[in-house]
């Protein structure tokens, strides 16, 4: 069976999201503190960052349900302040917290929502059937929303965001709180959307999600963009090729920090282990053994986006 769709979708130069010096203030607090972003048609663009970094505030501004406090914002080439309704007609939105209609059935959640876009009843029914099939919820079509599992609700919210055949879909933490099976199903569906040429803008704090889905991403921290690029570029720029995780059979790993000086480009002491950022992991492990430090375990792995993320946003818990 051959798929008629091309596997490589052309990313055009057309900017669907164009932000310059974008600011969102709540009272004295700047949730978004002057960011520049361009999302091009056809790409999957990610906002990464810890909680409170300003991702959701940014998404709400892009979704035209939150007026910017300052800066320039153009969505699909239009000004949200003047053409909010027209822009929203061409967007799909999957908010962080599912806000499905508890008084309607699964199918009605889609058909009633389609009506808000002025889609005819006949087309609405047809799309609902297709979308329920797409997110594998056809057998629950007549069920109410409440008894659905978290993963099912998420899939239904995603289906709902597609009911108007949007050019761009905004997904705020699409897989937070889902079990691995549900997460993989959502990823697979999002990937198919991307193949169909739909522009995806998503926020996440799952690095594997960003690596799997995003062509390009920005890392946000404290309302600002602290890094941007493709996942590969970010790893190359902010981390090393490999990471060695060493554990020593003593309560205080810190004592080994000095003894490891000079092995690799950078070193990080954690309460339970020491991370060595190196170009060649095996060579570094050999050097550790040459210094006869005798770690109880030494794991060599490829550097991931998570290393970049923690390096840029720090290990302190923000909530």
């Amino acid at each position, binding site marked *: 069976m051959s798929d008629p769709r091309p596997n490589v979708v052309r990313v055009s130069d057309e900017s669907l999201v164009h932000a310059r010096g974008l600011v969102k203030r*709540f009272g004295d607090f700047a949730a978004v503190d002057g960011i520049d972003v361009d999302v091009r048609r056809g790409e999957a663009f990610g906002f990464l960052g810890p909680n409170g970094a300003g991702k959701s505030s940014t998404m709400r501004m892009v*979704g035209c*349900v*939150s*007026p910017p406090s300052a800066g320039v914002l153009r969505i699909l080439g239009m000004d949200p302040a003047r053409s*909010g*309704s*027209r822009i*929203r*007609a061409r*967007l799909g*939105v999957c*908010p962080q*917290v599912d*806000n*499905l*209609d*508890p*008084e*309607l059935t699964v199918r*009605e959640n889609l*058909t*009633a*929502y389609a*009506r*808000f*876009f*002025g889609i005819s009843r006949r087309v609405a029914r047809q799309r609902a059937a297709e979308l329920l099939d797409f997110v594998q919820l056809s057998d629950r079509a007549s069920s109410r929303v409440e008894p659905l599992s978290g993963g099912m609700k998420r899939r239904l919210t995603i289906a*709902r965001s597609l009911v*108007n055949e949007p050019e761009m879909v905004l997904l705020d933490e699409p897989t937070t709180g889902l079990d691995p099976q549900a997460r993989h199903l959502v990823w697979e569906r999002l990937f198919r959307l991307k193949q169909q040429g739909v522009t995806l803008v998503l926020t996440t704090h799952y690095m594997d999600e960003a690596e799997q889905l995003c062509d390009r991403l920005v890392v946000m921290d404290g309302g600002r963009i602290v890094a941007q690029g493709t996942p590969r570029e970010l790893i190359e720029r902010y981390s090393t090729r490999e990471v060695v995780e060493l554990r020593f059979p003593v309560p205080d790993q810190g004592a080994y920090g000095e003894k490891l000086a000079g092995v690799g480009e950078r070193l990080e002491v954690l309460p339970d282990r020491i991370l060595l950022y190196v170009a060649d992991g095996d060579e570094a492990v050999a050097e550790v053994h040459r210094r006869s430090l005798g770690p109880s375990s030494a794991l060599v792995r490829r550097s991931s986006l998570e290393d970049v993320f923690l390096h840029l946003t720090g290990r302190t818990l923000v909530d």
Partner: protein
Amino acid sequence: MVTLALPRLLLARDSARRAGSMVERNVAALRSAYWIVMVGGFLEPLLYLFSIGVGVGALIGDIRIPDGRVVGYAEFVAPAMLAASAMSGALSETTFNFFGKMKFMRLYDAVLATPVRPMEVAAGELIWAMARGTVYAAAFLVVMTLMDLTSWPRALAAFPATVFVGFAFGALGMALSTFMRGWQEFDLIAAVQFALFLFSGTFVPAQDYWPPLRMLVEITPLYRAVDLIRGICLTSFGAVQVVDLIYLCALFAGGLALAGRRMARLLLK
């Protein structure tokens, strides 16, 4: 001229269509159990009419109304019950239900992510609230006419007026709901509503009140509504009733505009 007016007309049509889609959502949410709520809303004014209008009315006998005529007490009370039921029907839908949808079901967050605008949500919800009130009003007017408490022509004229009273109170209720912080504060609305129900010239002609109190009563919305409906059903439609209409128009327009603006402030932040 035409080129200027046409896009505006199309915009208005789109707005009406989007408000309509809000009503459609509510129709879809309607479940079989809803008829119980409907029966309750219809029974309430009817029970008041029988217990007080007919029952207590038998003890009171006839009363003299401002235009000098002497009428049965039930005749006097019935139009007021009609106005009061239009008020309570509209308020129950636009306070409790509206607040729940906005704050707890987060329904409007999802709706406002579509092309639908806050004012269109408010208008749609109000139209829906009044669909219910319209059924009550029609049924109650039929009962009034069958009991010979008013005439068919008067009842026909009173019908749109009652629906309009509902719209005015619905807009007011919706605007008030946007200021509520929790369920407790609705008790306050209920208390005020009950006070209005008792003292708006419903059971006793307001002309008999102590003058300062009478002035206070005359500026409250239910008094104006009772005065309007009673004028149509029982006495006459004069200058005072025109004032009633203007008052209710202002209440409706002001309430709806305020509700739309407040919703935008609460939900689009």
